[in-house]
Every structure is written in structure tokens, then in C-alpha cells.
């Protein structure tokens, strides 16, 4: 055994084994051409994102163009990083209805946990698959309401029907059906 070890040492056996491994990959890549690089040439080709990907947060609208948000402030309360600021107000002429007069998100602090999306009782918030949001100016990441709505319009072109036109169970699961069952009660 000791002799075998000595022979291995003097013939650089381990080093030659390693060099064989690298040249094998080289030959497979260049001559046999049965091996591909695992590199993804990023700006030219992009990964397929999973359906649950948590990217930029967007505000949604109903299919008639009205905002979903009812200004309840629950997202602000749920946010662990104090990203969200909501200023709630009454809809003029409709005393029971409220909306968010101002809604801003400081995305420099956002950690994309999705707790605001979970907290929203009317599913007005959603997480998009957008991620290329590097900016030269930090203030560009302070998103106001039109920007958040634009994000929603851009990423979710199919809008939901209004809440009162949805079946209660369907509304709970946030699935917009084309043919809704008639409301009981």
C-alpha cells in the first residue's frame, strides 16, 4: 500500500486525475459538442419565473376602471418595514364608501414579504413579476398611487369584475368568472 502511495505521489496521479476531468469537459464542450454551458446570457435571455414570484407590488382596478382599494389601512398595519402610507378619505356623495386619497410605497425599504397582499380584504394589492427596478435616483423608488396603478395595469391586463357581481365564494378566492352564478339572497 505504501509503495502504491509513493508511486501515486511521484507520478502526480491525483493531479493527472483532476486534469483529465477538466480536459474531458473541454473536449465534450468543444469537440464532441454534447455539453452546454449553464450560463444564462442574462439581459438577452431571462429565467422563467415561478408563478408565486414576489416582485414589485401593484394596485389593481376593477374591470370598469374603478380602484379596488377601499382605504382601510390594513396593509399599512401589516407592513413590517413601514413601506406603505395610506391617506383614507370618503367618496364624495357616497357616505358609506371610502377610498385611498393618497397611497404611496417606499420601495427602498420593501422586503417583498407579501404580508400587505395577504392583509388586503378586497384583493386590491398584488405582487407582479417585475424585478428590473434598479434606479440611479433613490427617490424614483418612492412610488405614488398612479405609478402603483400603472404597475397593476401593466401586469394584470385582465381585470376582475366588481365585488357585488361576484359569487361570494368566488370573490373570496379572488377568481374572476366570466359567467357568474346569480346571487342568492
Amino acid at each position, binding site marked *: 500500500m505504501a509503495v502504491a502511495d509513493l508511486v501515486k505521489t511521484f507520478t502526480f496521479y491525483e493531479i493527472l486525475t483532476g*486534469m483529465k476531468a*477538466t*480536459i474531458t469537459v473541454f473536449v465534450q464542450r*468543444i469537440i464532441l459538442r454534447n455539453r452546454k*454551458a449553464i*450560463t444564462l446570457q442574462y439581459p438577452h435571455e431571462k429565467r422563467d419565473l415561478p408563478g408565486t414570484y414576489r416582485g414589485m407590488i401593484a394596485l389593481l382596478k376593477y374591470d370598469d376602471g374603478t380602484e379596488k382599494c377601499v382605504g382601510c389601512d390594513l396593509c399599512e398595519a401589516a407592513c413590517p418595514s413601514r413601506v406603505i402610507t395610506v391617506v383614507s378619505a370618503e367618496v364624495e356623495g357616497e357616505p358609506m364608501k371610502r377610498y385611498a386619497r393618497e397611497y404611496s410605497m417606499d420601495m427602498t425599504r420593501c422586503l417583498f414579504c407579501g404580508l400587505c397582499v395577504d392583509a388586503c380584504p378586497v384583493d386590491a394589492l398584488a405582487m407582479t413579476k417585475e424585478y428590473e427596478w434598479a434606479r440611479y435616483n433613490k427617490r424614483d423608488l418612492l412610488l405614488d398611487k398612479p405609478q402603483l396603478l400603472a404597475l397593476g395595469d401593466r401586469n394584470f391586463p385582465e381585470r376582475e369584475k366588481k365585488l357585488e357581481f361576484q359569487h361570494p365564494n368566488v370573490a373570496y378566492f379572488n377568481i374572476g368568472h366570466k359567467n357568474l352564478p346569480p346571487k342568492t339572497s
Partner: protein
Amino acid sequence: MEMLVFAGASVVKITIVMVTVLITVAILTLAERKILSWMQDRMGPMEVGPYGILQPLADGIKLFFKEDIIPAGANWLLFSLAPILSLVPAFIGFAVVPYGPNQEIELFGVTVKPFIITDINIGILYILAFTSIGAYGVILGGWASNNKYSLLGGLRAAAQVISYELNVGLAIIGVIILSGSLSMVTIAERQAGPYGLLHWNLFGGLQIIGFVVYLISAVAETNRLPFDLAEAESELVAGWMTEYSGMRFAFFFMAEYANMILVSCIASVLFLGGYNSPIPDSFVPEFLRLPESLTWISGVFWFTVKVYFFLFLFFWLRATLPRLRYDQLMKFGWKVMLPLALGNIVITSIVVYFLR
């Protein structure tokens, strides 16, 4: 008049060699990145030009136009001198390398050797002497930068280059004993013969130990992986090059690659027969035999093939092996390589004494 013709021919030869070496350096910078990435399942540079082949050009333009920074606490004179001190010795060694057969042509009544700039009778000693001066560039650059990483890198490089230069010098003594000459041209000529690679010092002279010791020490001497302790990105930022930028950094970079080419040239001349073909004469088919006046084509071709084989070996080793620890490097150099080289000298001398 004769002086003028001689000087003109020399200038032309020097220009051709310099341009070839610089082009090879440019090719090597790309080839290294490409070959490494192919061996590591990556792609390497792909953006500049098709498959990134214009990357050396882009790198050169970037380094040329970059701001030239001298750190506030640096020694201005030595800081500027160090890149030149490491680049000039790297290029100066190419003067004595025979690139082709030792032919002579008549040019206006003056005999000119077209494939070697100058044939001095101590060629290999001259190369060794000048590559040692290259170590000054490294250590002065490391000291003058006024940066602890640079200083550490410079010190490491100096210790490493000195210990492994000894091994380089001892490893080639076997070849010198066999050839009986220090001239690179004579050493290459002695390896010519009708049986191709059987006349080389590596096989015919059985200088296998010398060859392996030379190869390993040459990798260490040029500060290449797995002996790049002086540069050691993961420990010392960039070693002695930490504070360098722009053209000065490019000088160091070119010096490293030129040293690689020089070392490969020496290895192919000393051990692999230089410009001599590895194929025995009787195996060459009739239609491939060149007329007497055109044998230099095959000579230059085989020399290029051998040099590029060694350059590929540099990249291959880099892709395979991790960096040695500093004490391992010193132990390996002094306790393994040095006794092997000395033993090689003793055995070669005894065999040559009794067989001649």
C-alpha cells in the same frame, strides 16, 4: 553600408518579434478566459463581437484611456518604474530564442540569420539573468504602492521567484550538459535528427525529471496558478498590482503573459527540440516533403505548435488546481524540486561521462 544593412535587418526582425509577441499576448488574454470557461461549463466573454473575439481590443482601449492614479503615499519614481522594470525583461528574452532553422541568407553582401534576432553563445544564461530582473519590478511595485496588500504580494513574489528560479536554473543544467553549449541555437540544433522526437532532450536525453521540474518551476516563476500566491485574489486583493490601474496595470499584465510565452519558448527549445519536427523523416509521406529552401515553414510551424501546447497547459493547470498554501509552496520548492533537480544533474553527468 554593411552596418546599415545589418542594423536594418535587426530592426525588422525585432519589430516582427515584438508585434508577434504582443498579438499573442492579446490572443492569450482572450484564450485564457475562453478555455477556462469551457472547462468550467461557462461561456466566457460573449458580448464584444461574435463570441467575444474582440474582447482584447475592448480591454486594451479601456486600459489605455483609464485614469492614471498614483496613490498619495506612494513613491512616485519607483511606482512608475516598476511596470517598466517588469515589462522590459519579459520582452528582452525573445532576442535569443530560435524561431526556426539556423539558416543564413545573403542580403546586400551581409549574412543575416532570419529566424533569430541574435545568436549569443550564453543565450539561456542571458534569459535567466533577465527574468530575475523581472522580480525587481514586482517587489518595487509592491513596496512603492504604500499598501499592505501590495507589500505582502511583492514580498511573496520575491521569495517565490528566487526559490523557483534556482530550480529552473538547476533543471536545465541537464540539458546544457547534454548539448555542451549555452547557446539556444546550438541546443536546438543538437536535437535534430532523422528519428524525430527520439532526438529531443526529453525522450532521447531522458531529461524527464528535468522537464517536470522545469515545467513546475516555470509555472511558479511566472506567478501563475496554482502558484499565484503573489497575486492571490482571495487573500491579497491583487497582490503587488493592487494600487495599479490603467496603462501601468496593463504593463504588468502584458509582462505576465509575455513571461508565459517566453517560458513556453524556452521549454520547447530546451526539451522538445525547438523547431524540429516530432515525426521521423521516414514516416513523412512524399507529397508533404518540403524542398530544402522551404523547410523553415515546417520548423516555424512545429515551434508554434509546441509553444501553444505549453500555453494551453498553463490554462489547463489553472482550470484544474487550487492555489497552494505559502508554506507548502516553499516546502515543495526547497525539499522536493531542489533535490530532484540536483539528482537529475548528478545522474546526467555520470551517464554522459561514461557514454561519451
